[in-house]
Structures are given as C-alpha cells and as structure tokens.
C-alpha cells in the first residue's frame, strides 16, 4: 500500500470526525432530555424525575467531556491537514464556525459548570434553566456546523475571486439548498439515537427488576418520542434525497447503485456494485422501485453513474452499503416504536419480555445509523471537497506523509484508550443505576427555595 498524503489526510479526518460525531449524536438529544426531565420535576415535583435527571447528567458529563476534547481536535484539523481548503473556503466556513464558538461553545461550556457542580449552589429553577441552556447550545452548535458542511455540499451565495470563495450574500450561504434538510435530518437523528439509548437502559432496568419505576418512566417517555420521530425521519430523509437528486445527482446514483440513466431505476434490496464492470452483481431488486421513490413515476428517469467519467464518481460500494445500513436501521426504528406503542396501548408493554430484550440490546443502532449517514453524505460528495469548487486532492497541507501517518497512529492509540475507558465507565454508571452509590438523596438538597416549593406546587395543582 502506498501512503499518499491525500489518502492519509482523509483517513485521519474520517477517523477523528467519526469519533467526534459519536458524542454529539448522543449529547444533543440527551441535553434536551435532561432539560425535559428538569422541567417535569419543577412542574410536578415528583422525585423520580429529579433522580433520572441527576442520573443522566452523570452519564452526560462523561460523554460531553469526550465530545469536547474530540471537537477541539476537529477545529484544528482544517489547518493541520487541509490548509488549501482553509485558504479557498476559509472566508465562508471560518465565520460560520466562528459563530458556532460564540453562540454555542461558550454557552455549553459555561453553563455545564452549573449543571455539573451547581446543584447545591443555585436555586432549582436556575439549575434546570442551565440544563436548558446547555441543550440550546448543542442545537446552536449543530445549526452552524451543519450550515458549514451543507455549504460544502451545495455551495451558494459566494463568488470565486482568484480561486478563493468570497461571500456575497450571507443568508444564501447559510440557508444553502441542502441545509434545511441536513439540519432537520441530523437533529432528528441525534434525538433518535438518544431515544434508543434511553429506551434500552429503561428496558434493562425493567427486565432486571431493579429501579423498575425509573425504568418504566424511561421506556414510556422514549416510546412516546420515538413513535413520532422515527416515522418523521423517513419523511425527512426522503425529502433530503429528492433535494440531493436536484443538486448532486451522481451521489444519488451511487446510493441507488444506478449505472444506466437511460432506463428507469430499480430499487436494489441487495447488490454488489462492480465499479470496473460498471454494473451490479447479485442484484435482488424491486423493478422500477427507485424511479417510483425519486421521481414518483414508474417510468421516471434519473442520471446514472455512467453519465460522468469514472474519475468524477464517488466510491460506489461505500456509499451504496452505508446508505442501506442507515435505511435498514431507520425502518427497524419505526417498527420498534410502533410496536412498542401498540403494546403500551394494549397495556402489555411491560409483560412482553422478548420485546424488552430486543430493546435492551439496541442502544447502539442510532450511532451506527448516524455514522453511516455521514459516510453516505461525505463519501458521496467525492471527488469534491467543496462541491464543484475544490477537489479533495487539491485541498491538503504541505505536510509530509510521515507526519500525517505518525499523528494518525497517535490518534488511534489515544482515542482507543479514551473510548474504551469511556464506554466502560458509562456502562458502569448505568449498571449502578439511578439510585447508585454516589447519588445524593434529593430531598434535603432542594434547600434554597425548598420550603416554598410544596406550597407553590399545591397552588399550581389546584
């Protein structure tokens, strides 16, 4: 294998970003969930909400810490490995990430201090508000970074001067054609990911007969959320794909394994795209299915991979399979949520143990779907880094392969240790449960306005 610097830089970026995105996918949803639990606690004053809130906050702290440190690495990757990219796109991507720092990172990082350490120092409402602010921070962060990424997919609102992209209309830059779809799809993905983790943990408690009350609350809250969000994701994803067909048709051709644009496309349930022979092997397909989905007509045609020369095609196998993994998980999520809701409605949810067993094992599916989705998006954009403007091969830094390779090895080793330890501790926190060792008893802790609280609650309940 020859180590060309572009390949190594891509590998390093892919490795570090995949590691990073694992944590946002979880913390974006979890921050919102914690804030929701806090609000419920303030409104209803039931302990189980506070117990759950404090429990998830500890897990949140561990994952958020890993998200922060791996995110800081990302913001330096553009300079260390992609300095040509920074020159060509820095005028656009830079300010967007600058807004992310100013409107999101400071907010998250500062109020996290109160969420983690302030329980006995601030009144309950401020504690819950801090949780809400952290959640808003994670959403604001998604907004700006996805604007940057979407601009790289579907650039708009700029003009090229001496080979450098210069902003002309910031509103067009931010609200570029793929941004609304990507934002909705990713934020929803993060909520789904968290939903399945909460669901799995709840199911695990119910099955194990420990913390049954908290476990049931978790399962119910998760199913109520997922039964709405999982089908919604199918809808958003469909719209997202139609939009991509308009702006990056070759990416869609790779997702569908569609070679010949002169015929309607089949929906391949399975196939092995052969990039040399320019056709699929071992196809199992629904005839014209892809045309029906993408053009809403059985005779509809859309561009095939063969409409561009091979050096302008993305890696078809990667995109094709990553897309199938994501959609398969999406469909499983819908099925699980709907079935869970059905059982809940028939009041047999907590007696159907085989189903709870499946749920308890499915905490990881959201993460895999998110990573697969990003592989579709990013690999599907190849060979472009900024679509139509800058090729990946032209975007690297003047850094020798040896430097990139040695730092890549360091990243793999360090992240390996961090990840293994992180997973181990999170797992142990979950095993200890909401009433585990280091947990404070909530009652005396409500000190600051604790006395006024029950009276206020009664007044509200009347």
């Amino acid at each position: 294998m020859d180590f060309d610097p572009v390949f190594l830089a891509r590998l390093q970026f892919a490795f570090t970003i995949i590691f990073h995105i694992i944590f946002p996918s979880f913390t974006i949803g979890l921050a919102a969930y914690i804030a929701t639990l806090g609000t419920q606690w303030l409104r209803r004053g039931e302990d189980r909400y506070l117990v759950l809130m404090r429990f998830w906050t500890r897990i949140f702290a561990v994952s958020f810490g890993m998200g922060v440190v791996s995110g800081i690495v990302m913001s330096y990757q553009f300079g260390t490995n992609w300095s040509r990219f920074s020159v060509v796109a820095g005028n656009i991507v830079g300010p967007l990430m600058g807004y992310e720092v100013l409107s999101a990172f400071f907010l998250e990082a500062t109020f996290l201090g109160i969420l983690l350490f302030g329980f006995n120092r601030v009144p309950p409402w401020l504690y819950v508000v801090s949780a809400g602010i952290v959640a808003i921070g994670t959403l604001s962060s998604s907004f700006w970074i996805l604007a940057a990424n979407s601009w790289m997919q579907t650039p708009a609102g700029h003009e090229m001067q001496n080979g450098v992209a210069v902003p002309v209309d910031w509103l067009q830059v931010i609200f570029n054609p793929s941004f609304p779809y990507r934002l909705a799809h990713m934020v929803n993905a993060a909520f789904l990911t968290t939903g399945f983790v909460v669901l799995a943990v709840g199911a695990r408690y119910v099955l194990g007969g420990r913390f049954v009350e908290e476990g049931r609350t978790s399962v119910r809250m998760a199913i109520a959320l997922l039964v709405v969000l999982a089908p919604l994701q199918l809808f958003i994803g469909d719209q997202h794909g139609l939009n991509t067909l308009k702006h990056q048709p070759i990416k869609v051709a790779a997702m569908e394994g569609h070679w010949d644009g002169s015929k309607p496309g089949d929906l391949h349930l399975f196939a092995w795209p052969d990039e040399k022979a320019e056709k699929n092997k071992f196809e199992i397909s629904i005839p014209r299915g892809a045309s029906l989905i993408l053009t809403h007509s059985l005779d509809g045609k859309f561009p095939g991979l063969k409409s561009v020369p091979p050096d302008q095609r993305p890696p078809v196998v990667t995109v094709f399979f990553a897309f199938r993994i994501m959609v398969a998980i999406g469909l499983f999520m819908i099925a699980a949520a709907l079935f869970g809701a059905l059982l809940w409605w028939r009041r047999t949810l907590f007696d159907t143990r085989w189903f709870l067993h499946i749920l308890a094992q499915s905490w990881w599916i959201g993460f895999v779907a998110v990573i697969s989705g990003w592989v579709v998006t990013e690999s599907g954009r190849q060979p472009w880094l900024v679509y139509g403007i800058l090729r990946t091969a032209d975007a690297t830094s003047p850094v020798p392969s040896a430097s990139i390779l040695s730092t890549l090895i360091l990243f793999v080793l360090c992240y390996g240790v961090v990840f293994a330890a992180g997973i181990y501790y999170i797992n142990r926190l979950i095993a200890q449960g909401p009433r585990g060792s280091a947990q404070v008893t909530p009652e005396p802790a409500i000190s600051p306005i604790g006395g006024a609280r029950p009276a206020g609650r009664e007044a509200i309940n009347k």
Partner: protein
Amino acid sequence: MVSYIPAIWAAILGAAVALYVVMDGYDLGVGMLFPFAKSEAERDQMMRSIGPFWDGNETWLVLGGGGLLAAFPLAYAVVMPALYLPVIVMLLGLIFRGIAFEFRTVSRSKKMWNAAFAFGSTVATFSQGLVLGGFVQGIKVENNAYAGGPFDWATPFALFCGVALCIGYLLLGATWLVMKTDGAVADQARTRAKFLLLGVLACMAMVSLWTPFAQPRIAERWFAMPNILYLWPVPVVTALVAFWLGRSLEKGREIAPFIATIVLFLLGYLGLAISNFPYLVPPSVTVWQAAAAPASQIFLLLGTLLLLPIIIGYVVFVYWVFRGKVKAGESYEH
C-alpha cells in the same frame, strides 16, 4: 474604515489568546502540580477548585483557532502545517487532561487518571511553549504557503519556551490555589509560588535577552531610537509587579498573588506583541496580508461585538456562583 478591521481582529484574537493563556494557564498549572499533592483528598480539593471552570476556559482556545481561520485564513493555513506536530501533540495532551476530570470522579482507582491529568497538562503546556517559540523565531513562507520541513520548529529556543511556559503556568496554578483553596493545599502552593516566581523571572529575562540577539528585527523594535523612549516602562513595570507579587506572597495575601501573576503574564504578552506586530506570521505575513475578505471579517465582527459582552457577562456570573474557597473535604458534588 475597512482597513482598520484587520487590526481590530488582531486585537480581538490577541485578547482571546491572552484570556486563554491566563485562564487555562491556571487549570494546566494545577494539573502540573497534581503529582506533588500529598493525598487523594488534597487532589480532590485541587480538582474541585477548577472543575466548574476548565471547559469554559478551554473554549478561548477554540475561539483563538476558529477566529484565526475566520479572520486570517492565510495565517491559519501557514501556521498549522508549520507547527503541525506540536499542535497535534498539544491537542492530545488536552484530551487526556480533559477526560481525566470526568473519568477520575467515576473510577474506583484514581491513580491512572491522576497520571493522565498531570501528564496531559504537562504535555499540553510544553507543546504550547513550542508553538510560541516556533512562532516567535519565524516561519518560512513561499507563495502564501508553508515552505519548511516538519521539524523546523525544533530549536533550542523553542524547547526553552516550552520549559518556560511550564514554569509560568505552574506559578498561575499555585497562586490560583492560594486564592481558591484553604489548609495544607493553599500553604504548600504559597511556598511553591515563591520559588516559581524566581523561575518565571529568570525565564522572562532569558527571553528578553535571547530574542533581540537572535532576531535583529526584534532588537531594532526595542532599541532603535524613538521606540526605546516609549518602551522602557515595559520592563520597569514588569519588575515592579514582580516585586508586588513577591511581597503579597510573603504577607499572606490570598487574592493579590493571583492578580499580580496575571498582570505579570499580560506584561510578558505585551512584550511579545510589541516585538512582533504587525506580523501575524513573523517574519513575512502581516495582519493585512493574511486578512480574510472584508465581507467575512465584518460579518463575524458584528456577531462578536454583540455576543462577546454577553459571554463575558455569563462567564463572570459562573465565577460568581462558585465564589469563595473550596474547603478541604467539602465537595461541590455532582
């Protein structure tokens, strides 16, 4: 008007980096002091004194990096490849330092994460010193891109800056502990701060002599004729502040030593700024050459002018929430 904007950006980024150095400097200093603590309880107390703040402090580094990309993409694109290895090693150090906070609280055996915390803090600080040294000694640029090799930064001067910054952050960390803790931890920190102050002064003197000798442009900046008339107060004020710091440590003051250390750092920083302005990448790329398109600089400047005061407001608020000393044995629990 538009021609001032790059200078405004240079000032904002300069301020962000200064805030980073001072604020994460004390966190990293506490990290480096970790192995010297006598017991697990003392280490708990030290860590609790920075627990609520470190993440926010580190964010100034993200603003420094992100702001550089936004306002001066060319400088970002030159500096990062030039200082590739120290920058990445710094990031790895920050990773171990950062995760140690959470992992240490949830793990049964604290040893491993104590080590990760101290090791990460030291590696990150030393690498920041290398970055500083590599920057001051100049970066080779051709055709708007870095034109040197992967180890151009590795000079005796840069290594010296690495050590010097470690001593500096240790002083910040020690005076922070004097201010924010009590009991044995604070007493030991006070004793150490006295030695560290001597070390810091020696380092500052070394740098002040070394850079003008090695870099004629810096010698000229300070010693050429009208300049010296304006600039002589800088070293004099530095000496006075050092004296104040030493006295306040002797007299058992609690807050003054930390403040004096900050002022000392800012003066050293000012000295560096005087030596290198208007170069963003010495000795060739200036603030104006590296500037982003005006539309980019203005767009983010508006947001900065609006949001930065709010940020400073809530940062101050959080410091206020966690005001007072972390007592031995007490916990903020979480």
